[in-house]
């Protein structure tokens, strides 16, 4: 649009009424800039701007699982129902993993990549990476773990909840439930694995009932720097990868009621400001490393880890459950950054930001957009690679969390020209479900 009109009038700084030529020059400067302004985006363009990853619902006031108010509208209900998919399936042919050795390698057959449920309807570019079950005790049994194996040997664990788990978690009515990959043989038992016909469109599954040996043996391909400790001793290496001290898989055990969850490398750093609390969970580094990452990223990463203004927040406590009186976080948001490791090479740091329930402005808490996912682009030169940007079509970071709060982050290799992650974050079963066969529970 061409608009070179220069608003008349005395300059605002002319407190004594005398004309200041600088004001005219500033107006002329603005006239040049405004003249170059393009047409504003249309409503459709603003509305249709989408994220490459599944959107996540904001935590409604008072809890992350409050039912939507009546009269929301059928369209909204349907949209919400579609979005609250009980999902998470991961793994494709050749998940590419960065192993800290100066190159990339593919995690191939034999590697087990656990997959968990995660609601996928989040607004404002947030990605829900956690569900606070404490706020919704009526969710019932947690998902069971199903094990899928592909014909090339790659294996995936799929958390398959009871048929109405997703809808209960979403606060939707049972009749709006989405089909989930689950058994239909009834409630879980304490015995061995159970089998049953899958729901329509999902492959045959063998599920391990909560509390059985299958769940505790789940492993996570969470790359971490060396030095992390676990309460159970050294963690096993990632299946299929050579054992090395700087690569480890963190054991994921089932949580109460089903899948136990444990991430011993998580360091929680709490920040507080004007009654609002934000907990930053840093995965994959030991405590000193985690604090270093948080300290570096907090003032720098554009509000990535703490609400804006970043300097308004101060660390309240370093680790643990947070300050006295802190309410349990209602929702977490994933931030992924790639930071320089202690050995000079890149190391993955996966962080989550837990929002105190009731925090008003999620957008102030940054990130949560796919564009905020950092990635390794040239880690061989040992630079700090905290970066924004969507996946480049070759490597994508996809994160999932189960109802008990386990964060699973996996690098996903190129999917081809379309590079469409939709089937993986929105689907209920592996995208190439026909390639997945039933296997015995572990």
């Amino acid at each position, binding site marked *: 649009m061409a608009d070179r009109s220069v*608003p008349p*009038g005395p*300059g*605002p*700084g002319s407190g004594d009424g005398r004309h200041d030529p*600088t*004001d005219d*020059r*500033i*107006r002329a*400067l*603005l006239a*040049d*800039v*405004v003249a*170059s*302004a*393009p*047409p*504003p*985006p249309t*409503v459709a*363009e*603003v*509305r249709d*701007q989408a994220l490459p990853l599944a959107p996540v619902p*904001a935590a*409604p*006031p008072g809890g992350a699982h409050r039912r939507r108010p009546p009269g929301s509208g059928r369209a909204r209900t349907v949209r919400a129902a579609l979005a609250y998919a009980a999902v998470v399936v991961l793994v494709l042919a050749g998940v590419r993993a960065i192993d800290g050795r100066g190159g990339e390698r593919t995690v191939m057959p034999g590697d087990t990549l656990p997959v968990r449920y995660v609601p996928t309807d989040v*607004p*404002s*570019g947030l990605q829900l990476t956690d569900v606070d079950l404490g706020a919704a005790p009526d969710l019932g049994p947690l998902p069971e773990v199903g094990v899928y194996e592909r014909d090339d040997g790659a294996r995936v664990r799929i958390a398959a909840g009871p048929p109405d788990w997703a809808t209960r978690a979403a606060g939707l009515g049972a009749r709006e439930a989405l089909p989930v990959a689950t058994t239909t043989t009834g409630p879980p038992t304490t015995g061995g694995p159970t089998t049953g016909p899958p729901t329509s469109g999902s492959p045959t599954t063998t599920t391990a009932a909560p509390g059985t040996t299958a769940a505790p043996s789940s492993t996570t391909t969470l790359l971490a720097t060396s030095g992390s400790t676990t309460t159970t001793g050294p963690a096993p290496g990632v299946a299929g990868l050579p054992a090395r001290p700087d690569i480890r898989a963190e054991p994921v055990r089932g949580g109460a009621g089903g899948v136990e969850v444990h991430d011993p490398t998580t360091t929680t750093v709490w920040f507080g400001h004007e009654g609002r609390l934000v907990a930053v969970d840093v995965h994959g580094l030991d405590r000193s490393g985690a604090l270093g990452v948080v300290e570096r990223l907090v003032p720098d*990463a*554009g*509000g990535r880890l703490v609400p*804006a203004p970043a300097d308004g927040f101060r660390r309240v406590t370093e680790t643990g459950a947070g300050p006295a009186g802190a309410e349990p976080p209602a929702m977490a948001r994933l931030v992924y950054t790639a930071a320089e490791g202690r050995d000079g090479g890149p190391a993955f740091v996966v962080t989550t930001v837990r929002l105190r329930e009731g925090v*008003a*402005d*999620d*957008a*102030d808490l*940054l990130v949560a957009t796919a*564009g905020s996912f950092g990635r390794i*682009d*040239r880690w061989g*030169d040992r*630079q700090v690679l*905290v*970066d*924004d*940007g969507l996946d480049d079509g070759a490597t994508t970071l996809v994160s999932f969390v189960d109802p008990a709060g386990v964060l699973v982050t996996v690098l996903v290799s190129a999917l081809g020209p379309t590079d469409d992650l939709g089937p993986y974050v929105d689907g209920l079963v592996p995208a190439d479900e026909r390639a997945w066969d039933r296997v015995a529970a572990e």
Partner: protein
Amino acid sequence: MIRPEETLGDADDWEAVYVAHSLRLIRLATVLVGPDDAPDLVSEAVRRAVHRPGWASVRDPGAYLVTSLVNQTRQFHRERSRRAAREERTARLASPAGYAEPAADLDVRVALEALSPQQRAVVFLTYWEDKPIPQVAHLLDVSQGTVRKQLDRAKAKLKRVLDG
């Protein structure tokens, strides 16, 4: 930042609000980030604003969108600088011998680059839209003192740049 205001019916109809303020937003965005990135900035800022939990209760949605736009600019600049650094790094690594520093931008944007996003917004609202200090403060959700201070600083910076 959420504005804890009284409920306003038309805040629910974000599309109408946006249309009413779109011209201001795109012009301000152009001042903030340049014409090439202005549409994306507007889209992102509006989308974030209308999806915030407090949007329905905002009393002045137009001002809220302005604030959202300025706030989003900070994130935009950080992303852009990191992207530029990555591209530069890639270019250097790809052709270290042939890498040339990009030529400095000598047009009017040089002057604006001297200002922070908030200062640019203050300048735009004050000089282009001729808003008084109190109204600028309201639009940007800052104090009047902050507006005066930012305006003085912006004017001083621009004067130095314009004087060469």
